[in-house]
């Protein structure tokens, strides 16, 4: 059983929902990313998404775009992120997921990349611009190495796509809460009930909701529908604000704790 699967099982048994914060690896720097992961775990995170910075993040809003730029200026690469994962794995058993875009993985070489991910102790991968249709090779490698490959669904997904993604995704299924890019708080919540009940009719895999969740109340609402709540931009915004100041960990930690509490029970 993968770490991610085990975590969802345990939470389900306890009647709890997963809180999954997203931070960009290397923003503001790799040392602080490591401290942030440990702090987030202490404050109630059930898994962590580590963003892999890319020069052209077309699914991301301004907050994560800026964060990626900061990380790229730090000279962050996949190799360095895998090293970070390896170091983290010596300190924590929290499920770790990489989220990024396809080109850096393709350039690295899919087979080699997946092998190294699993050696480093990574649990899952989310590739924002890789739908199942184009993911055959990566999926084959991921399956072989026990790495979860998480695909996304959105409020405009057709029946056909809901079936395809539900069947392809492992670990959990990522439901994007609105049509748009990350961190758009103006978007409000679109009705996900129908989408989620359709997925539930097809699979018992856990469902996570992400995009635009920025407060305890929106986290709570998402938690009432799904098995996991993913918060990215709202946390990254605080990392941007506090940078490498000494308050960074406590500020981000306090915010995360609020979200974790709101998420915990439906």
């Amino acid at each position, binding site marked *: 059983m993968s770490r991610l699967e085990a975590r969802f099982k345990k939470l389900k048994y306890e009647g709890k929902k997963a809180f999954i914060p997203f931070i960009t690896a290397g923003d503001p720097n790799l040392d602080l990313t490591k401290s942030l992961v440990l702090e987030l775990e202490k404050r109630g995170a059930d898994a962590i998404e580590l963003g892999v910075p890319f020069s*052209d993040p077309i699914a991301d809003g301004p907050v994560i775009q800026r964060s990626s730029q900061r990380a790229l200026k730090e000279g962050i690469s996949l190799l360095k992120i895998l090293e970070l994962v390896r170091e983290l794995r010596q300190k924590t058993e929290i499920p770790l997921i990489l989220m990024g875009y396809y*080109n850096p993985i393709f350039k690295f070489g899919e087979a080699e990349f997946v092998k190294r991910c699993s050696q480093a102790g990574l649990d899952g991968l989310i590739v924002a611009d890789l739908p199942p249709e184009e993911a055959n090779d990566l999926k084959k490698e991921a399956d072989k190495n026990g790495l979860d490959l998480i695909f996304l669904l959105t409020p405009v997904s057709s029946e056909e796509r809901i079936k395809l993604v539900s069947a392809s995704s492992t670990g959990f299924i990522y439901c994007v809460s609105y049509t748009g890019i990350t961190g758009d708080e103006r978007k409000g919540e679109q009705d996900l009930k129908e989408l989620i009940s359709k997925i539930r009719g097809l699979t018992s895999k856990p469902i996570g909701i992400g995009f635009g969740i920025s407060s305890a109340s929106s986290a709570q609402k998402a938690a009432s529908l799904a098995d996991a709540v993913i918060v990215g931009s709202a946390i990254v915004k605080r990392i941007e604000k506090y940078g490498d100041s000494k308050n960074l960990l406590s500020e981000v930690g306090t915010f995360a704790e609020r979200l974790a509490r709101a998420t915990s029970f439906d």
Partner: protein
Amino acid sequence: MNYYFPDKKGHFGEFGGKFVPETVMPALHELEEAYLEAKKDKNGFQAELELYLRDYAGRPTPLYFAERLTHDLKGAKVYLKREDLAHTGAHKINNTLGQVLLATKMGKTRIIAETGAGQHGVATATAAAVLGLPCQVYMGDEDIRRQRLNVSRMKLLGAEVIPVSSGSCTLKEAINEAMRDWVTNIRSTYYVLGSVVGPHPYPMMVRDFQSVIGKETKHQILAKEKKLPGYLLACVGGGSNSLGLFYPFLEEEVELIGIEAGGLGLSTPRHGATLAKGSIGVLHGSKSYLLQDRNGQIRSTHSVAPGLDYPGVGPEHSYLKKSGRVKYYTVTDSDALEAFRWLSQIEGIIPALESAHAIAYLKRLAPGLNRDEIVIVNLSGRGDKDLEEVSKK
């Protein structure tokens, strides 16, 4: 016909495909269905488009025998395909009329586009005006600065120009922003991509709309010379004017040559020569050659011609390069500028800086050929937009 690409999934061999966020997948499916329907609809969509191309855009554009130029080069006989004479001054209108007409059939209520040189932006704004849809165009700050004339034209045509200030502030960033807009407004909005790039079905659809250039050229040269040309020459940024010219000739015995932006030279990092210097990767929805670093981050590019200032290229060009069917060469900024002046003076035609790259290569190619050989150059656009920038050089 043996050449039949893309396949059903939008692949040209190993290139192409649909590498997009999940939100876009249903929209691409919807677009593909609508396009294939329109393609078959000879009496409806196709007839309507043909009428617009003829009576509104001024097609067919002439195939002009450039006598003084031919004389000057003392080699092959040179013809220019005069896309600069199409409405709005470039080949871009062929594609935008097709796509905006399709948008109206699909019931979309809003048009967005990206633009580099501003020619695609102007052509989209024009098509949106004549077909009655509101239009917003994303354009990098750097391109807004160096293509002010086209910015004014777009505004006059009723479009809103949205400046993009990320990265190198050119075409790549404009496409990023247009894609983000599309993801956000996917239900109501039609995204008019300006070249043979992006996820399937765009590379196929834009090629089809632009292949009117090659079809006309074939008829025209056969009528004038009773034979096909030995060579076809065109510049390649994303690659729509070149593919539009080449496509109907892919299975003929004609040498096809694409010219990329050499910028300050291939020994520097300041160029846009994707096929010459790139490696395979994924950007803006398709797998193709790319200018990228060893970590798969996309590099910034440079060309004096904004329309060639792009780190990617259409996936079909990648296929045609790898298969060897089309040869690709590069021309530097300074050679393009020289050709820009030369063509203006010798033929009284001011070419776009993009097209001037093809003209510069012609100066290398034609003198070594026999006088009974024929070379056709796609003069993809006019150069009025570039005067201000060229006068600074």
